[in-house]
């Protein structure tokens, strides 16, 4: 039984209380403080969360799938009880006057918000080195990055501080850190989970996602918060996700291997991890099929046009007028307010992306960049459709091209950092669901692989992932 389910059933059945779980979490958050992964938590706040669960009637509590489960929340998801900073100076101290829909749903399911988790500023980054509040350490090796942008959430789960956490994906920001940290990260189909209360970065890409130590942990959290939201016009009118019962084998499933994700010069450890996963699929009775996604190499450049363009518009609201930190330049007028607030409140990566985004939308460049990127995005989505139509139930690929890299290794060249996303961002561009799960370790660091499924096929994807997880020893050093 997974950690989430055993914790929740304990509280539901009265064998333990949410208050006890809250105390335990507080102690673990203190012990893992050096990771710099948690922001804005307090024992009092935890007690209040627990009181809500313990104060419910036993019959209500018996219906809570996540009763008393502590969950870390990436700090770009708004909550009313503590600040939401998005890892940025511009929102330092900002306390939202409303809660995100996912927060409301998790609380209704009995979960406790353990803390806000550190992130790359405004979710822009692949290493959580771009937070205004310091970088997050990899739990296994503090000189390494945990991945990003949801690095804080990943580190907390990997370090055992919390059994599950929320992150968000725009270009792989949950699967990539899950892979680096040796845990599970699930990105749902676009439109499966409400974005109301997720601070927008790339609106057509953003997806609230979940972390857990196991597939089951992360899947239960995802299921509890999924479903149509009338406050988010991009959610699909479908009932909430219902998980399939666990499966012992992969008989009857065809799993595609896209050639473009297995380049000749793929990192040896990553390759070895994937080989283990492929062997496990065959051992479990699944069929392997070679496929091609020919436009894969254009995914990252496409992403780095569309995401910054949407971000440039989404971040225009941070102007010091209605909320957040205000700074006024020497001229003392309105323009001095805008330029100083934004120029000083945003970090370097955010500023770069806003400028790129503004550029690709600007007069004279829109067709060459933004419109072109939309054309290529359509081609990328079609590549996946064709692979699924050719008989694949899902695809298996590496999640990241390498294990976790060292802090500072890629911060000098923005493009080098972007290339960390080559295997994850095509999925965001196509809006598909995917799950990263650990497949072993190489030189002391975790390795991950991902399954990618057709739109709204999370249930089958996750049951397959769970079967693979059971068959693989994630702690094993691979050759």
């Amino acid at each position, binding site marked *: 039984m997974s950690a989430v389910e055993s914790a929740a059933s304990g509280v539901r059945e009265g064998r333990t209380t949410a208050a006890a779980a809250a105390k335990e979490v507080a102690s673990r958050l203190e012990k893992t403080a050096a990771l710099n992964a948690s922001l804005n938590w307090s024992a009092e706040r935890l007690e209040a969360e627990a009181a809500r669960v313990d104060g419910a009637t036993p019959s209500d509590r018996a219906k809570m799938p996540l009763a008393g489960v502590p969950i870390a929340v990436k700090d770009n998801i708004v909550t009313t009880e503590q600040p939401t900073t998005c890892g940025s100076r511009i929102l330092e101290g900002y306390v939202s006057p409303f809660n995100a829909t996912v927060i409301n749903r998790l609380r209704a399911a009995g979960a406790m918000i353990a803390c806000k988790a550190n992130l790359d500023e405004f979710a822009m980054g692949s290493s959580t080195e771009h937070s205004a509040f310091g970088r997050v350490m990899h739990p296994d090796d503090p000189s390494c990055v945990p991945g990003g942008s949801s690095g804080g959430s990943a580190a907390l789960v990997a370090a055992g501080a919390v059994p599950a956490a929320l992150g968000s994906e725009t270009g792989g920001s949950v699967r990539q850190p899950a892979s680096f940290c040796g845990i599970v990260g699930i990105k749902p189909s676009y439109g499966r989970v409400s974005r109301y209360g997720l601070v927008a970065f790339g609106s057509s890409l953003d997806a609230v996602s979940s972390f857990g130590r196991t597939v089951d942990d992360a899947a239960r959290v995802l299921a509890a918060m999924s479903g149509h939201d009338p406050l988010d016009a991009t959610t699909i009118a479908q009932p909430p996700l219902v998980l399939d019962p666990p499966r012992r084998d992969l008989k009857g499933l065809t799993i595609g291997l896209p050639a473009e994700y297995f380049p000749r010069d793929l990192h040896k450890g990553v390759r070895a991890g994937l080989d283990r996963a492929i062997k496990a699929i065959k051992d479990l009775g699944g069929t392997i099929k070679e496929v091609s996604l020919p436009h894969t190499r254009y995914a990252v450049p496409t992403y780095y046009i569309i995401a910054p363009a949407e971000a440039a*518009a989404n971040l225009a609201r941070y*102007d010091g007028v209605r909320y957040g930190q205000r700074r006024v330049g020497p001229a003392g007028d309105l323009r001095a307010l805008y330029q100083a607030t934004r120029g000083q409140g945003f970090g370097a990566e955010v500023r770069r992306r806003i400028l790129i985004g503004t550029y690709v939308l600007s007069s004279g460049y829109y067709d060459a960049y933004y419109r072109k990127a939309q054309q290529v995005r359509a081609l990328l989505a079609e590549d996946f459709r064709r692979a699924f139509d050719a008989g694949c139930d899902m695809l298996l690929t590496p999640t990241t091209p390498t294990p976790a890299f060292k802090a500072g290794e890629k911060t000098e060249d923005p493009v080098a950092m972007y290339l960390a996303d080559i295997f994850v961002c095509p999925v965001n561009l196509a809006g598909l669901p995917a799950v990263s799960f650990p497949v072993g370790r190489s030189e002391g660091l975790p390795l991950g692989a991902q399954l990618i499924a057709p739109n709204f096929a999370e249930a089958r994807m996750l049951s397959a992932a769970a079967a693979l997880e059971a068959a693989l020893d994630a702690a094993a050093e691979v050759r």
Partner: protein
Amino acid sequence: MTWETVIGLEVHAQLLTKSKMFCGCANKFGAPPNTLVCPVCLGLPGALPVPNEQAIRLATQAARALGCTVHPRSIFARKNYFYPDLPKGYQISQFDQPLATGGTIWCESPERGRIGIGVTRLHLEEDAGKSLHDRLPGKTAIDLNRAGTPLVEIVSEPDLRSPAEARAYLTTLKQILVYAEVSDCNMEEGSLRVDANISIRRPGDSKLGTKAEVKNMNSFANVERALIVEHDRQVALLESGGRVEQVTMLFNAAAGTVKPMRSKEESHDYRYFPDPDLPPLVLTPKWIEEQHAALPELPEPKRERFMTRYAITAYDAGVLAAERPVADYFESVVGAGAEAKAAANWVMGEAMSGYNETGRFGVSAERLSKLIGLVKEGVVSLQAAKRVYPELVAGNEEPRAVADRLGLIQVGDANTLGAWVAEVLAANPSEVERFRGGEAKLMGFFVGLVMKKSGGKADPKALQPLLTEKLRKK
């Protein structure tokens, strides 16, 4: 030198919905500042827009009322710029796939008679908040109650040829939108805003001259005034050998002048792109036609129908059809039995004065119809009826009862009249002889005496033939 004036108008009208365009805040005027706000219209981190179905409906109806084609698929787009009353740093609008295109507004030009002015497009967008420059010293104050209010933007083709035509276009447009209950088009309250583009060229030139944009007009009269001033400025400029620059001019109503905007900014680059938070707006042709069918009869067809059905003049039909409440009232009065021409006169006269003052009709259609009937039957004279009317406004009495109470009931029955006539004729034998001898104008003398004897109650219409008959007898 003669010049041809070319004018196009861009109108923004607030829609009469209960809630805002993209959130559930109330859409109303006059609330304390920043009280009709929520995460969405405040542009808070994490908020998302969801479109208001009634706004779509009203915009569709407006588009059909203007003869536009409503497109089954249209896209919301972000218009990006910075201004303190624009909370998100972009306005959700529509750009290259608007809700509707290609309509016509028929109006009366003082110079050209009936003209059809093209409507290029009608699209949906949200309003910005209000910036107040004089409330806090040295600062600008922002009220976001208005932010997110639904608007339609209606752009005309540059088909207008004079400032007077511009005014006529606006009057007609307002009439249509008010009729359709889409907007109350009140420029003073800001539910209707107008920006004008004006250029001049030599008659016969097919190329358009450089246009100037004119803003900051708060009434239709001021739109006309501002355009006259700007027209004159452009004429003077060109006739002295200068060139018209593409500028934005602000109208100053108090001074009656236009001046260029101070900031010499290059024109905005709005960087429009489809709003990723809003999937396409898809409307079925059936639904579009249902909205069109649900429109009330519009002013132009109503005018035509009044003329045909009630045999009243074009002028009268125009006055009665100008506002729906007036038109409906008129038809109720006729429907209650009154003769159309008389009803028209009463509605355009006494009833309208009351309506213009109080906004309602003080006398029910039933009662007015009865009053008109009394005049027709000769029970009261028209002048007497006009004395009855204010009593009907003041109280609930039936018209005949009022007339009775005021002693205004005319006597028209032959016996009573006959008796009075007989008395008068008997008392004035020599005048009778003279009348019979040929002095026809003595009729007035007899009429006057009978009226006096009857205390004014004799019905002149019944009296006349009776007198004639009795005087003829020998």
